[in-house]
Each structure stands twice: as structure tokens, then as C-alpha cells.
């Protein structure tokens, strides 16, 4: 197994572990320490990050995997997790090349957009595919979107650092031909 592939698998493993940590943080740490403020959905912010940064095809399947992991922390049905995340990913993909922003500001904007889309999709899709659909919970959802937006900068800094940690310029800057030539 080549070192590039090994590094890739390690990256996926670490991101998955981080996803678990973020879910646990939201369900078991934040509500016990600051119960009066809803926890930021850091796991959702991570999904936004990989939706914006990683290659689309792989990201979709990875999001499905994360959606499955999500059901370990919630009563959210798998169908709801997958459909909502897929629609959110699709809309983010449509917008990501049309917004002329970069860095943390761009991520904060996409967090705001993604959180709104996620909440609306959840309500809409719940009415379509669930027998007993969810309520609007307007205030709770609004506060959740706001908290996500507030924490987006910190989350971006962390995810960016983590992503860069696995990025090897020497490997990715080489073209295959050149690389082959050097090895031969």
C-alpha cells in the first residue's frame, strides 16, 4: 500500500474520530456545562467543511457514512439524516463556485446558508417522508442557526488546520508523469 493511500485512510479515520468527538461534545458535554444555550452543531460544520473542500463523489459517500454515525447519537432516522444531508450538500455545491469569498469569511457564510438549508430541508422532508412529521420549532431552529454561525470561525480554524495537517505539498504538487519519471 502506497504512502499516499495510507495517508488518505489515516485522514479519513482521524476525521471520523473527530466527528465522533464533536457529536459527543454536543450531546454529553455542552448540555451539562451550559444547558441554557444550545450547543453549536460542530458535526454539521464539519460536514459543511468537507462538502466545500473535498472531491464531490467521495464526499457524498463519506457524508452518508457520517449520517449513519449520526444515528448513534440521536433518534434521527437514517432516511432523514441521509436525505437532509444530501440536499444540503447539493445546494452547497451549487453555491460554492458562485460566491466570491475566501477563507473564514466564506466558511461563515456557507455555515449560515448551510444551517438554514439544513433546518428547512429537515422540516420539509420530514413532512414528506415521515409518518409523524416534526414541528417548525422556529425559535429553537433560529437560535441553532445563529449559534452555528457564531462558532463557524473557530470551527473553520480547527478544520483548516486538520485538513492542512494531512496535506503534503511534495506529493500533491507533482504531476504523475514527472513523478513516474523521477522514480524511474
Amino acid at each position, binding site marked *: 500500500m502506497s504512502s499516499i493511500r495510507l495517508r488518505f485512510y489515516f485522514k479519513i479515520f482521524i476525521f471520523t474520530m473527530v466527528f465522533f468527538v464533536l*457529536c*459527543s461534545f*454536543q*450531546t*454529553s458535554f455542552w*448540555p451539562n456545562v451550559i444547558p441554557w444555550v*444550545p450547543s453549536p*452543531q460542530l*458535526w454539521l460544520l464539519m460536514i459543511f467543511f468537507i462538502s466545500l473542500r473535498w472531491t464531490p463523489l467521495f464526499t457524498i459517500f463519506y457524508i452518508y457514512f457520517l449520517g449513519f454515525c*449520526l444515528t448513534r*447519537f*440521536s*433518534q*434521527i432516522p437514517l432516511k432523514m439524516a441521509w436525505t437532509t444531508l444530501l440536499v444540503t450538500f447539493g445546494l452547497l455545491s451549487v453555491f460554492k463556485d458562485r460566491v466570491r469569498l475566501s477563507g473564514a469569511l466564506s466558511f461563515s457564510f456557507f455555515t449560515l446558508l448551510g444551517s438554514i438549508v439544513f433546518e428547512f430541508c*429537515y422540516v420539509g422532508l*420530514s413532512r414528506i417522508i415521515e409518518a*409523524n412529521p*416534526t*414541528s417548525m*420549532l422556529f425559535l*429553537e*431552529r433560529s437560535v*441553532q442557526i445563529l449559534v452555528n454561525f457564531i462558532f463557524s470561525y473557530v470551527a473553520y480554524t480547527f478544520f483548516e488546520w486538520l485538513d492542512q495537517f494531512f496535506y503534503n505539498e511534495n506529493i500533491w504538487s507533482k504531476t504523475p508523469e514527472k513523478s513516474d519519471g523521477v522514480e524511474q
Partner: protein
Amino acid sequence: MNFLNFNFKKAFILLLVLSLPLISINMEQKKIQNSWFTQPFSFIAQSIQNIFSGLSTGVRGTTSEYLNLLNIKSENARVMKENDELKTRLNQFSENQNELERLRTLLDFQNNTKMELIPGQVIGRDLVVDHKTITINKGTKHGLKEGQAVLTVSGAVGYIFKPQYFTSHVMLVTDRYSVVDALIQKTRAHGIVEGKTKDSCVLLYVERTEDVKVGDLIVTGGLDNIFPKGFPLGVVTDIERKTKSASLVIGIKPVVDPNTVEEVFIVKHAALENFLEKTEDSPNSAQAGHQ
């Protein structure tokens, strides 16, 4: 004309030089310190002395105050630290007292019931706002299975729907997926309680003719084989009588606030426990449950 070639000027100066000490000795003998010509000098001297004395007092005072301040600061820090420690101990003591009371109540409940109970602690909440579940620190390792009732001393909390090895997810009675058989304690009319919002439920399928009032106690029905019969579930908050419907829609507020619950019991075996019979035996207990 100077016959002896005598320098008078020098002689005068010499005389003056010698006479001044003599004069001073003479003045000392007469004690003339308070003479008129000394008074202005004395006044100036006193004034300057007073100024310097005042200045030195000020400097000494300031220095001493500064030094005191330093001492007070360190002393204050020490006292503050001591105070914080005492406050922390007091808080800890109050917390322990509360915990002791709570655990004593739980123990009494566990000892006075026929049910086999497993105590558990809430360790997590649901990830999304759309679902109302909690995670407890007991799982299949501790003998938990799907469909076991979860309750507190005050009333029903929910039931286990996703047991794992070390932990279990509990569906609260307020979750929209939750369904619990219930009855109105006063009239014994059966219905189904479904979750509605994060702190309310709804009792469905109760006949229109039933005499239900706001404040009536709703208890578990026992037909779902999850909860023991007659355990407090909620209190009626509103009654909706739809004209074209044969049944009532009754709003309920759970007796246990599922958002703040910390310790729960999981019913391993209900052992045919019937709280309704107990309630009938002691009318006051219904009132207590109601409260």
C-alpha cells in the same frame, strides 16, 4: 600721618574678629534667645521646619500606607482565597446535601416497590432539536433491553429504544415517536399519549363524553407492557373538543421535566406492580403525585 607705621584697618578687623565671640559668650550668659531680633529668624526657621516636618510626615505616612497597602493586598488576597475555598466547600456541601436527599428518596422508592429497578444516570441529550431522547449510563451489559420503562420517583420519563453495550438511548414521552398507553386517573378512561413538543404531550382517543378537567392526573395504563399500571405521567393542561371528531385531544404537561432529569430508574421487571391500587388505598398519594 602714621608715626608708628600702624595699620588701623587690620587692627579693627582683628578686634572685631576677637570681640564677636566674646559678645556671643556674653549673650549666651544673658539668655537672650527670645530677644526681638531673633524672632524673625526663629519664625522663618520654624516655618521651614514645619514645612519639612510636614513633608517628612507625609512621606513617612505615604510610605507606611503603601507598605500597609501591600500588606493589606496580600492579606486581602489570602482572605479572599480563604473565602472562596469556604464558599466552594459550602456549595459542595449543599450539593452533597441535595444529592443525599435525592438518593435517599430514590432508595426509599426502590425499597418500597415490588419492581426490580436499575438506577441510571443521564449522560447525554439528543443531537438534533427534532427528537427528544436522552442517553443513560446503563446498557445491555447491565441487563437492559428494548422497551423497558424508564421512570423517576415522580413519574414516567420514557422507555428504552436503542440499548447498547454500555449505554442506552431513552425515548422520552415528549418525543413525537413516543406512544404510551395511559388513562385518566379520575375516570379510568383509556387513551394514547404521544409526544408533542419538548415539554408537552397529547392524550388521544379519549371519548368526547368523558368528564375531563384541566388539572386531572394522567397515569400509565399498563396495556403497553412497558410501564407499570397507574404510574403518574402528566397533568391535563388543555382540552380540545373538535366538533367533527368523536374523541378529545387533551394537552398534557409531564410530571417529570425530561429536560432536567439527572437520575432515573429502569424497570427490569414490573412484577405486576399496580400503582393505581396503591393510589386507591391512600388518597393522599394521588395528591402527592399530582403535585
